[in-house]
């Protein structure tokens, strides 16, 4: 299903997201998700990839959407888990894990904050047909929290803690998210950076250089520092 919001196209996807739907996405599309998504970040990656331990639940039942996130959650006295808000965490720190993670988990969609570099998309995402969705804002924790209808489970909660555990959410109209990288490996951020970069030299014009510089400092402001 697709509608438009201003000049932007809106798409609703059901998880696990199939390849046809993935290939139809373009950078800058607004996405909402229905189905099951799970969280995994450095400690889960370490456990599965580094220590070779599998999650208590099979990856096929977890769907194919990996959210780089740690929720604001609490274990209530009756043992149920409740989630208030959810916000993504910066993904560029995890790129070293992604090749193994795609292979082991079969994930096809990564949701996170800030995206990864175009190089990473070409090297890691395109070969397995995966795409990247970025959360919006990035502080839309309350809206995303609304989209979580049920916490199905939280694996390794005792060992890894609330922030790093593997949370499995049943979601409905979970979003908004934006397609940051599509199946061709383009990056929406990099496309925008290129436009912004064009005006940078003008901004600095006439400002005299600083008297003391720093080791490793670059004056190439078109570069990203991630």
């Amino acid at each position, binding site marked *: 299903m697709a509608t438009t*919001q*201003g*000049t*932007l196209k809106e798409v609703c996807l059901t998880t696990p997201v199939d390849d046809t739907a993935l290939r139809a996405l373009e950078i*800058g599309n*607004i996405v909402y998700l229905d189905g099951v998504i799970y969280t995994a970040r450095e400690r889960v990656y370490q456990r599965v990839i580094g220590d070779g331990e599998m999650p208590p639940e099979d990856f096929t039942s977890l769907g194919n959407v990996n959210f780089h*996130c*740690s*929720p*604001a*959650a*609490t274990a209530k006295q009756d043992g149920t888990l*409740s989630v*208030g*808000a*959810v*916000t993504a*965490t*910066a993904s560029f720190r995890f790129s070293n894990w992604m090749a193994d993670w795609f292979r082991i988990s079969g994930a096809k969609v990564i949701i996170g904050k*800030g*995206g990864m570099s175009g190089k990473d998309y070409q090297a890691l995402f395109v070969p397995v047909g995966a795409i990247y969705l*970025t959360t*919006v*804002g*990035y*502080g*839309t*924790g*309350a*809206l*995303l*929290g*609304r989209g979580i209808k049920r916490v199905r489970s939280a694996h390794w909660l005792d060992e890894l*803690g*609330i*922030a790093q555990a593997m949370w499995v959410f049943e979601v409905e109209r979970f979003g*908004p998210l*934006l397609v940051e990288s599509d199946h061709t490996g383009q990056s*929406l*951020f990099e496309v*925008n*950076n290129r*436009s*912004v970069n*064009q*005006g*940078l030299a003008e*901004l*600095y014009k*006439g*400002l*005299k*250089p*600083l*008297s*003391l510089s720093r080791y490793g400092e670059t004056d190439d*402001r078109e570069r*990203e*520092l*991630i």
Partner: protein
Amino acid sequence: MIPIQLIEVSAHELMTRAGIDIPADYLSGLKAMAEVEEGDLSSFVLRAMLENYEAATVDRRPMCADTGVPRYYVKVGNETQIEGGFVALEQALRSATARATHDIPLRPNRVQPLWRTDYNNNVGINAPEIEYSFEPDGDWIEITTVHKGGLFGTDYRMLFPGDGIDGIKRFFLDTMITFGKRGLACQPAIVGVGLGGSKDIAMVLGKQAACLRIVGNKNPDPRIAELEAELKDLGNSIGMGAMGFVGKSMVVDCHIEVGYTHTGGMPMSIHAFCLSSRRATAQIHPDGRVVHRTDPNWFTAYMRRETVEWPPLKEHSRKFA
């Protein structure tokens, strides 16, 4: 005497308000930006944020799941007396933090830096931080909590007098562009600039400027206020908006605080108080009255004093001469 139980309960309420309800000044600042933003992606992001604040308030859930690092700013009057004294006060603030983390819920963000020990309550060594200031009159206590995002959008640099306003602008642009790309700073933000003092004070002043002054507030020194406006416009002319998309929404407002510094230096810090500009203040009186507000009113004339004596009246100093 201010009852300690009242302080604990009020601090818990502050944690809740800060985490859930976006302050009115920031909200109207952001709405004004959303109205003039022309970049389609940047403007979509701003509209989503406005929806998010509403969802948070209606559902009573945190506006952002990243709690940031909750902390307190405490102002006490010269005549204030607290039941149990300052040790009891600090314990009450720690207890309120731990309870609110569980009740709201907030994400337990605080871990020991080396072993990553996590008590799941946002309390630990030096956490939450508590900073103090004083007022000459008054028997009340004012508690402000701030939940500021932690990782990006802040930098420090030692500049020198010869670098001048150019140097300030250059470092301002550098920081905005570095952290603005991909929206790592979660802009548009209230940007605080600390100028002067020693390194640590430059950092403290800049952070307080970002977190404890509201949108629309100006520095009382007209020349500093002019520089605030100039830096705000400069940030918004980068060509970058929310999430680093093409646009012009970077700086909701810019606040500068200064401290007298070493004659050879001009240390400068920059702090972006993110899209979740979470702050809440309560003034608690000995008769049990609690007045809630979102303006911390931290930088009083007394705090910015330049003179030896207070009040800075000629007659007054003569009296002591």
